[in-house]
């Protein structure tokens, strides 16, 4: 029994060494999509709180078990509600934040293009550009 334990630990350690660097970055990737529940305004990846550290440990464990990131996110949403997602969902109320700025920018650009695009004054000679240097 004891021997088995040692083998498991050894395998895990070797596996860990082989994948550690990639795994840390993958943990960061998932953790940066979750907000830390106890420290408003920080993601789990950035937070220095204890809870965030535990959540990172859970993410690490689940990634090691081969769970896909989406399932891990769903796991946390189930426990903490949708408010934990760092990115607002792209449906329902959340879609406003995604659509509104695009509309503002495209609308503004279209307005500028239409309002000034066809203004037909006769072409004037290019103003000499060096006046600032004289």
């Amino acid at each position, binding site marked *: 029994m004891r021997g088995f334990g040692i083998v498991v630990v050894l395998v895990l350690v070797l596996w860990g060494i082989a994948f*550690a*660097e990639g795994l*840390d*970055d993958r943990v*960061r990737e998932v953790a*940066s*999509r979750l*907000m830390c529940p106890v*420290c*408003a*305004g*920080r*993601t789990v*990846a*950035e*937070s*220095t709180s204890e809870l965030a*550290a535990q959540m*990172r440990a859970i993410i690490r464990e689940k990634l090691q078990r081969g769970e896909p990131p989406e399932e891990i996110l769903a796991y946390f949403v189930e426990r903490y*509600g*949708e*408010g*934990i*997602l*760092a*990115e*607002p*969902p792209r449906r329902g*109320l*959340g879609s*406003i*934040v995604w659509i*509104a*700025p695009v509309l*503002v*920018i495209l609308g*503004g*650009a279209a*307005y*500028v*293009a239409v309002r*000034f*695009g066809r*203004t037909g*004054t006769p*072409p*004037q000679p*290019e*103003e000499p*550009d*060096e*006046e*600032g*240097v*004289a």
Partner: protein
Amino acid sequence: METIAAAPPSGRRWPGAVAAVLMGAGLATILWSLRGEGLALVGSAALWIALASTVYGIAALLYGLKHAQPVWTASGLNAALTPALFLSVALLALLVALVTHDFTLVYVARNSSLDTPLLYRMSGLWGGQAGSLLFWTWMLSAFAALAQLRHRRTDPVLLPYAILVLSVVLAFFLVLVAVFENPFRTFEVPPPDGRGLNPLLLDPGMVMHPPLLYLGFVGFSVPYAFAMAALLTGRLDRNWIVATRGWTLFAWAALSAGILAGGWWAYRVLGWGGYWGWDPVENASLVPWLLGTAYLHSALLQERAGIFTAWNMVLVILTFAMSQLGTFLTRTGLVASVHTFAQSEIATPFLVYLCGLVGASSGLAAWRWDQLRDRAVTVFVASREGMFLFNNVLFLGFAFAVLLGTLFPVLTEAVQGVQVFVGPPYFRQVSGPVGIALLTLMGIATLLPWRRATRKTLLRFRFPLAALLAAGIAAGVLLRRPGVVAALAVVAFTAASTLQEYHRGASVQVARGKTYLAALWRLLQDRRYGGYLVHLAVLVMAVGIVGSHAYVREREATVRPGEGFRIGRYEITYRRLGAEEAPGVQRTWAELEVRDGRRTAALRPLRVYHLRWDQPTSHPAILSTFREDLYVVLEAFEPAGRVTLRVWVNPMVRWIWTGGVLFLIGTLITARPSRSRRTKE
């Protein structure tokens, strides 16, 4: 601060300054002798006198301007100088109390303690809510006084109206300070020692960050006041823009410097590996900056060609309103955030004030709308003016997105009862494409002439387009990530077009017989080329931002003494744990040895436990080069010596600070009055 209150409008400044310093010293001595209840009384009295004189000034100005009574107008203007004087007394009183540990004052006891070093006792002036509001108000009164001294002769018509507007704003803040958040409240029985400043604020970055931000926030009130004066008087020519150009640039530079100082502080103190977290308070300073940048550019058009009056009016109102909102968000904790160290009841008055401000300003603009609209605007899309317009649209859209994202949790809570959080990933996804578009426009606008591009203009695109292609291909082969490749290609394009502009300018002068270097040196001092220097600095920072965001590596490791681990090209060995006790704090650090192939360096990430606050702070150890920063945080430790370290490799962060310094130098050059412009007019 005394010089502002007492400096004569012109001429012999030195005797005045010396007298002011002597008066200040004398006053400080008197205040010092009054410590305790007496000092609190003087401070409060100064606040109320300042409020009374502001209210009198408003009344006198209103009466004088309405009934064309110059005597009353002059009296109102004089009265508007006094708040600066009395607020200086109040500020000095609070400073004396902080420096001399006068714990009779609640504010002093909450924001300093016997073991707080002198520098941080002084910065305690803006470390808490009441103090920072007093500081803000003092600054506003000083700006109003300075504006009066500066513009009395040059803009006699606009000035009284501008001072009236500034006085109304000042009156609101004075009410806040005197009634709601008076820093001179006292204990009946003073405690023997104070609680001390929040340990996170014990950093030079935090000494500079708030005053710089406030300089920016408050600075925009002067252009705003002159814009309102232009609306009130109906003098909607470009005079108000020309008059306030210096103020706009000053406010914008201070805001930029404040944001940079905040990033620098966050990077060195908060210990989460980054410098910008899209935190609500950070966003609250970014929104006015974005709008101010848009305004700065479109004001140039009005100054140059007298166009876009209405648009500038809208932008200056928005910029000022967002500066006020910035103060509001920072000080009231409407959106919960790590920065908000103080909660308060000033939220409701502030909200009423903000709505009134926006309502009144928009009402004024609507009232003058027919005059504001430009009669015959002839702008071509394919011209520098056209690019400025698109620049405005993008800045405005960007500011809107940041504001919407910041307030969204509050909005959804009001509408649906659930907070829908908008975190860093959202802001990153918005700022990436918008940033790239803005950098592209920056390059194109530099290449296009004013008024209208011709076929000949296309020739100017050759070199920048070649740079774009070369950088794009090189980055595409080496880096793969499409966003990064696009960003770097665009940076190369815009850098090439800006440098080409320097070359063109220099060549013109070489043709007149100057040497190339002398010509470049002359260009470096020119206002317009100062602007290009700011553009180049933005490119340097952009490279740093892209690099540090796209290629961050992170590792968390728990190690025993003697053990080591790798991250990137660094081999980190943990030697031993060090610890020491100082009054009020326990310091613990890990001694690390870092090898990156050739060099060896010693790093000491530190963790300080603050007994009084029952709170630890992390002080990351940073090994910084232009290539990358190795950033190590001591996350946890056990008495036996086992430690958990969080390590980041942040590429090219140094480019951001370097670009930031270059940025400020360029802004200073731009703020110089340009000789050529004056001769032209």
